[in-house]
């Protein structure tokens, strides 16, 4: 025990001394050290920036999920990956509204669902003012409850609007501004294409969303689901549903699949022509992609660290041959092989750590840069603590790996030869 403590103390002293000496060496050879560590700096900076971007994206998506509700399930047509329908036209596998009739009775885990249509961009006119390319969506009233978009003024769309196929609409504040409508614009008529609709409510501005598409440049208009077929005869239908709780969301997905296979007349053994995705599901997919991107970035960074490591090895070899006399002297005054080895190894590791530190600094700068690019959804980019740990871990490993050979070379020097060296 005592011997162990002694050994530990001896190592700590040596460690302290080596760190002190190597920082001195790095300071003494500033230019050289900078050039040497550039590989490490670039490697660490790029890996931290990539991880920061992905973490930011993930954080963003998680906040989206919170606003959207984590029980949400998206149902959309999809070509199967195998079978004769692999290259079927999308139109042939579209959803029909009646596919979903009676779904609630057959799917006990589903709380509610709502059908919606994307009518596409239309020109909306109010008196002389018009707004182009307004995205028009037909929604069932249930969609309001699933997608939490509060109505700030007026009322939401109702079942009666739906039943009577009324020409009413909800608009968002952006459109109200674009059309120069009064703040209280309830009851005002507007033209969507050539059809007159009456405004019944104003929605809260859209949160920056990745789902439901688009950026904040286009404004939105919501009309009753059945009314949307008046604007265009043939429309693609999508469905959003909500499971009773997050725990049963997988059950709900299974039930919906089963139900849809029957209503869409898919025979046993044939592949699905639709997909049912929960938010959790989508998150998993994102995580999967994020992991792959991280791995690819990691590979590139690995190469960069390798190059950096070779640079470190090269410079350490130069250092060893430059300081041969010093090594000889240290050995003459009683430095053991292990002491010399540790000194040079720690010097390499310290060099790498300094590179790692500067790299993380640059990574932070890059991250700030990324976060400030407009319209890229990366404004939440940040470097997580584990990434910093990883960066240091990697650069330390590179230091040990590539510093080992020069350090062994130094430790093996014969003191007499070393002292005679010019």
């Amino acid at each position: 025990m005592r011997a162990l403590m002694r050994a530990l103390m001896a190592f700590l002293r040596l460690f302290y001394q080596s760190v002190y000496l190597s920082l001195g060496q790095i300071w003494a050879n500033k230019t050289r050290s900078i050039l040497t560590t550039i590989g490490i700096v670039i490697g660490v900076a790029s890996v931290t920036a990539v991880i920061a971007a992905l973490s930011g994206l993930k954080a963003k998506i998680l906040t989206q999920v919170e606003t959207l509700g984590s029980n949400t399930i998206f149902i959309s047509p999809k070509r199967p990956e195998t079978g004769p329908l692999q290259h079927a036209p999308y139109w042939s596998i579209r959803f029909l509204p009646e596919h979903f009739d009676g779904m609630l009775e057959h799917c006990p885990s589903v709380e509610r669902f709502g059908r919606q249509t994307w009518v596409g961009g239309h020109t909306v006119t109010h008196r002389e003012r018009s707004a182009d390319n307004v995205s028009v969506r037909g929604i069932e009233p249930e969609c309001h409850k699933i997608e939490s978009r509060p109505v700030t003024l007026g009322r939401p769309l109702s079942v009666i609007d739906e039943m009577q196929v009324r020409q009413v609409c909800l608009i968002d504040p952006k459109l109200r501004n674009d059309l120069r409508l009064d703040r209280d614009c309830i009851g005002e008529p507007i033209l969507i294409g050539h059809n007159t609709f009456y405004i019944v409510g104003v929605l809260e501005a859209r949160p920056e969303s990745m789902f439901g598409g688009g950026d904040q440049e286009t404004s939105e208009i919501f009309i009753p689901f059945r009314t949307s077929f008046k604007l265009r005869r043939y429309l693609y239908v999508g469905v959003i549903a909500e499971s009773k709780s997050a725990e049963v969301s997988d059950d709900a997905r299974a039930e919906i699949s089963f139900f849809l296979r029957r209503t869409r007349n898919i025979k046993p053994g044939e592949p699905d022509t639709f997909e049912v995705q929960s938010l959790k599901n989508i998150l998993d997919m994102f995580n999967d992609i994020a992991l792959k991107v991280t791995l690819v970035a990691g590979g590139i960074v690995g190469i960069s660290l390798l190059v950096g490591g070779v640079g470190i090895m090269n410079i350490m070899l130069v250092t060893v041959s430059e300081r041969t006399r010093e090594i000889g002297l240290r050995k003459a005054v009683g430095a053991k092989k292990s002491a010399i080895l540790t000194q040079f190894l720690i010097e390499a590791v310290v060099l790498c750590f300094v590179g790692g530190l500067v790299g993380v600094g640059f990574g932070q700068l890059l991250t700030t840069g990324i976060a400030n690019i407009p319209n890229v959804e990366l404004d939440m980019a940040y470097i997580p603590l584990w990434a910093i740990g990883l960066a240091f871990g990697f650069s330390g490993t590179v230091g040990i790996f590539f510093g080992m050979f020069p350090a062994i070379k130094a430790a093996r020097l014969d003191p007499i030869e070393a002292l005679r060296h010019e």
Partner: protein
Amino acid sequence: MIAAEADKPVIRPQNDKPVIKLQDITRVYKVGVESIHALDGISLELKENEYVAVMGTSGSGKSTLMNVMGCLDRATSGYYGLDGQDTTKLSDAALARVRNERIGFVFQSFELLGQLTALKNVEMPLIYSKNGWWSRRKRAKNVLERVGLGDRIKHRPNQLSGGEKQRVAIARALVCGPSILLADEPTGNLDSKTSESIMELFDRLHHEGQTIIIVTHEEHIAHHAERIIHMKDGRVDSDITSNRVPSDKTKMQNDERGGLS
């Protein structure tokens, strides 16, 4: 214990215990098929507090002898006892420890580390020693004062004169309280006046009880020593102990003591 020894001048011990005992030491270098006998059967005995000069032309084996005595090199055959301990069978690590604790080296070209201060240079051997770590600054300071550089401890080697550099190197050799001080041409890079002052320092250290071995080829340097060993072709050519114990030495010693306190 060692620290105490290094800090204060020791009373001259009068016992005749051998510090170094060499028996039939050979050192053979193999160059291709030829083998060169750098040391060809050397037997020597050095007692405590002896003051020895090793002389010889280049190629006489005096440097090899110094390397062997300094445990930097291993003898090919023979017995080498240092403080009664057989060093021929020690491991590399054990030899490093022996060099650290019992041998002080002084080199012709000083071998100071340029980016460290005088104090740090002197501290260096203590970094590698087992129990010198915590007191290293104090001990280094003391020994620098002992060689007369108490006011130069923060200077770097390039701010010191040649003589001062060599004093720092001597301080470094003494800091661990070695049994023997091995000096390889300690005045080879110095002018004659500085050489003389360095030799006076060696004389004084000898009076304080230090065992000193100086390798040199200069007669007047060698004459400071009490015993002069001439080497030739890897053998001891002559081994003369001068019984010159002049009265001026005692006088000088008193002067030094006075000057130190």
